[in-house]
């Protein structure tokens, strides 16, 4: 019983919402709640927190009563660790390179690294895609739209 419950998606979705709702409820009671006539900043989040907790419990309840789906997994069958990692790494590198080296290196690293996330992509292909985006992209944002973000800088 408990084993199958652990495989149900709604077990986790309900649990997450309940936890979130409870957290919000507790946190909002640290703000001034006030009265119904003169509501303080804590009143509205407090109400939402209670509602969310309640909905979370309801979702949790549906996990208990419905039978397990045929192939119910939390993670998708194919785990795309490489893809997921690269898609997150791209914007992270954009922040780092943008902060220290400027728009062009940031753009190139973002596109290059995230392009590697596709299983069929090659190093050369990703470099070329990176260049193909960086040059017109920087021209567009820096020269046409005048975004205050230097193309190159040395930010240490």
């Amino acid at each position: 019983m408990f084993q199958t419950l652990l495989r149900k998606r709604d077990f986790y979705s309900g649990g997450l919402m309940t936890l979130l709702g409870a957290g919000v409820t507790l946190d909002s009671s640290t703000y001034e709640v006030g009265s119904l006539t003169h509501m303080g900043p804590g009143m509205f989040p407090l109400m939402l927190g209670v509602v969310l907790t309640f909905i979370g419990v309801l979702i949790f309840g549906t996990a208990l009563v419905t039978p397990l789906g045929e192939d119910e997994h939390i993670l998708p069958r194919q785990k795309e660790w490489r893809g997921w990692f690269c898609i997150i790494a791209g914007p992270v590198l954009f922040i780092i390179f943008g902060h220290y080296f400027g728009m062009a290196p940031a753009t190139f690293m973002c596109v290059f690294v995230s392009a590697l996330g596709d299983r069929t992509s090659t190093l050369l292909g990703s470099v070329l895609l990176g260049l193909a985006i960086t040059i017109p992209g920087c021209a567009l944002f820096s020269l046409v739209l005048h975004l205050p973000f230097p193309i190159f800088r040395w930010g240490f």
Partner: protein
Amino acid sequence: MVTTALTDLWFGFGVALEPHNLMWCFIGVLVGNMVGVLPGMGPLATISILLPLTFGIPPVGAILMLSGVFYGAQYGGAICSILLNLPCHPPHAVTCLDGFPLTKQGRGGAALGITVISSFVGASWGITEMIFLAPVLVTVALKFGPAEICSLMLLGLLAGSTLARGSPLKGVAMTVCGLLIGIVGSDIETGTPRFTFGIPNLFDGVEIVALALGLFGIAEFMKSVNQLSEVDTKYTKVTFKDLRPTKDELRRSWGAMFRGTIIGSLCALIPGTGPTIASFISYATEKKISKTPEKFGTGMIEGVACPEASTHSSVQGDFIPTMSLGIPGDAVMALILGALMIQGIVPGPQLISEHPDIFWGLVASFWIGNIMLVVLNVPMIGLWVKLLAIPYKYLYPSALFFVCIGVYSTGNDMFQVGETIVIGLIGYVLLLLDFHPAPILLGFVLGPRFEENFRRAMLISRGDSLVFIDIKNHPISAFFIFLAALLIVVQLYVRLRRPKALIPELEMNAKPNNIAPVEP
């Protein structure tokens, strides 16, 4: 009343035909059509990417362009479903059922031709509906006090979250999360920072661009990476000449087009039911009243004309509650409302009288944009078809760059990029847990106004929480609450009585292995 509407419309054409507005409208429909064709990109992600670019242009141009992306994408989506059998955009999932068999029989061009005609018919009806209905709604809505606004928002949020895709319960949970994200930042009345975790960058609240791009950009890319199968372009050789349908096909389509248009315009009036549901309902209706229902799915031209007409009539109709009441029905409308708010325009019933150039300019631009789309799609069909073959592996890295630079440009601050990454990760976890993140945006956009009006209503009623269902003094508010209660009861009834009758049929059509961007 008809004459005032027509003079206003005339004024609107004057606004929309100004050269720069015409240009923004054209860019909007062009980009929209393009992303509609590209498998794996949705209008939601595109509008969020373009949103920061509109900060610098006047509000009218910004709204014309962003709306153009939305309805332009619907044109492109049809090409993708008919020629590739890929329901890239949920509203066109049913079009695949008969559109692709037609393509296999070599009549794909005719199906596209019929699509263009029915789209135009549907859109024209939706626009006409907007011209005459929106001012009427406004005259009613201007009398609303805080209690009425509050109840109306509650109804809108409830309908938007429970009628869209997926489990209604989870939809409501997402809406509440959206409302909570809307709270982040300084309290409007006391200035107390709430849920900011001590981070000064969050005192102004969560950036709408970061939220939208995290949920519909990064999270979507994580879901679709390596999931898109190679596109089969075997049937995609379509030229201008092929678009012309035969006389018989045209004759069979008119009725379907008309019925689809009506169904779409009715669906548009109910918040949350948007184009996707409209197209499903109209296809089912068409199948039911047809003399040969068994032939549906084997390439019936009616099965293309009907859902396409209803999609477009509902897409245009979706703007009615958004522009006249300030209540968006789905996530795209929430984004457009967000764009208005960024420009410093308060959405609500006063919008039409305070900013007639925006409202009537938008209405006029719908027509101009739809004509542009016909012109763009008919002679240039060959070019659009070529775009279908662009692989996803080139697409998402480029889109990620636009995501990063777009978010950065909202405040010239790298913090926003980090915020987007975090929201994207959370969004992907939510997707894995079977939550649809679209209602989050709905709650987020309405949240601050909801809280403000709620507080005000309670202050006026001296803390009497029954003010919302007070039939004597607030009959309209009570009516909205009654509708909301009815909505819940009906849904519970449908679920408990026949839990699996409706849903699998709808979900089966949207094939899970082909990605469908999050859309209501």
